[in-house]
């Protein structure tokens, strides 16, 4: 008798707790969604991908087109996007720059029969690291809150800048 009462009582308690939890979770997901990259990855579905192609008008130097793709019109500011691509282009130009420093590095490497690269990284690699950090920072600050994600071009063989567009959940009902 007592056991049965106890069972009913505890079931009610648990259900109550579950309801509270459910609403808590729903709110938590709502709030978290637009704030961090981690949450986007856990929750969002990929709606589309945009590819920014290379711009060869200056030769074989690695540059990307700054033309604003139409799919991003609703998501991000044109100036912001162009700023990002322009900065990337500048960074790549810095990596491939022919100047005193790169010549020095080349000659030194030749003299040491290129064994110096076993302990030192090339100028290009150093700039690539800078680029990776920049992209991460842009993703965290600007693109992730808008449901976008930039992929480092080096992962696509420096062919394209891939921008992944996630489904916009902020207007969705039924959480």
């Amino acid at each position, binding site marked *: 008798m007592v056991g049965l009462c106890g069972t009913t009582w505890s079931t009610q308690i648990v259900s109550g707790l579950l309801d509270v*939890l459910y609403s808590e979770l729903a709110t938590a997901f709502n709030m978290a969604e637009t704030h961090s990259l981690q949450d986007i*990855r856990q929750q969002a579905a990929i709606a589309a991908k945009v590819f920014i192609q290379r711009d060869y008008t200056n030769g074989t130097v690695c540059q990307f087109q700054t033309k604003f793709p139409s799919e991003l019109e609703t998501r991000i500011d044109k100036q912001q996007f162009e700023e990002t691509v322009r900065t990337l282009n500048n960074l790549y130009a810095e990596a491939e720059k022919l100047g005193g420093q790169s010549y020095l590095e080349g000659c030194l490497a030749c003299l040491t029969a290129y064994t110096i690269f076993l302990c030192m990284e090339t100028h290009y690699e150093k700039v690539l690291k800078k680029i990776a950090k920049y992209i991460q920072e842009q993703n965290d600050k600007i693109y992730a809150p808008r449901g976008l994600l930039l992929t480092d071009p080096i*992962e696509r063989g420096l062919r394209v800048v891939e921008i992944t567009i996630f489904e916009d959940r902020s207007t969705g009902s039924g959480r």
Partner: protein
Amino acid sequence: MHLGVAEPMRDCEYSQISTRSSTPMESPHKKRTPRRKWQTFPGRNKFYCNGRIMMARQTGVFYLTLVLIVVTSGLFFAFDCPYLASSLTPAVPAIGGVLFLFVLGTLLRTSFSDPGVLPRATPDEAADLERQIDIANGSSSGGYRRPPRTKEVIINGQTVKLKYCFTCKIFRPPRASHCSLCDNCVERFDHHCPWVGNCVGKRNYRFFYMFILSLSFLTVFIFAFVITHVILRSHRSGFLNALKDSPARYPSCVVVCFFSVWSIVGLSGFHTYLISSNQTTNEDIKGSWSSKRGKDNYNPYSYGNIFTNCCAALCGPLPPSLIDRRGFIQPDTPQPAPPTNGITMYGSTQSQSHMCDQDQCIQSTKFVLQAAATPLLQNEPVVMASEPPLPARTSLGGHCTSLPLGQPTPPTSTPNLSCEADLIPHQEGAHHHFLTPEEAPSPPGMLPCGSPLDHSHAVQFYSPASQDSLHEDSVRGLVKLSSV
């Protein structure tokens, strides 16, 4: 304990269902060995030393080159150098030695490095390009192969045609070309050299040039000093006697050297010309920038003066390899090759249709916890209760329900977690998976373990000790869930 016995069996059952069409892991017991990218490289290349060395498929002529150089130099050092060192100067073998080592070093560097291979397009990229081409051409094009696709670009005032590569599914950058022997697109493609057993492209052109330059110096050096040796000996004992003293290797050595000198010196001269005008062998043979084509035809890549062109080609920055041979394959990386089993589950198209969104997850978790609470109080296995309501869902949905019913695994035991990880990420982390290639590479099993840890804690509530501890545990579990 009843539950303890029942659940591992069910755990293995669930993991078998999940692995049938997904990961390369055959059973939960086999350790998953992450594969490196060179093992699934789509081109016709050979890799050695776990991806550090990259060569073309036919390497026979390369070994011939190696043998010729080593044997000729060996004979020189063995037979001529002792005499020359004593009668002339010991600097002779010293310089010869340095030259020989430099030749070998540059040869190996040319043969073993990545010439500048362009990785093939991912399926998404290829689809996007096709779409753009259709828009550009107008979609009315029948037949299997559309006419060759080209894109025109103006570089420094010259119109350059970029061709579409059907194999790599990309528009080739200017100066890139597809090597049919290696089946790769190579940046700044010069030529495929069978003597070095590799393509010569952007990344190894300077090593190739150094190789032929130093080899021409070496052959001239050896040739000259062999002649000197014969002359010195014949001064002392007459010409015929000199020939008799040393074995009949002289004719063969001299012949090899003579022909090498002309061919290799000639080749070095040709490449010196190419470097100073900033052209590739490919362009020169086709006459792309020759003035015979037109009055206004000039090389748009040239820097204007010979010195800058030479410096740029030989001392400019060395770009890194784009193909990342030694990187690990992420299970959900969009691979250009036909997808392995591991990708079918995590691929982008799959992820969109099979995605268990958080509503479903929360609902199912809530239902399961509710259902679990009642029978557990009577100390019965939990698994039965929630199986029936969700049979119609996809396998992913099924995993959503089965998740809390699996054995709660301690976070530190990775093999178990990787088993769980197959179940868990389908609900939350499948999108998460798709994005992980963009982060620093990590072993495939590890990343999804971050989020499911909370879930595995959450299921601890059905340790059937007593009602009180059950409530305590359930509250604890629910609190942990809410911290996700």
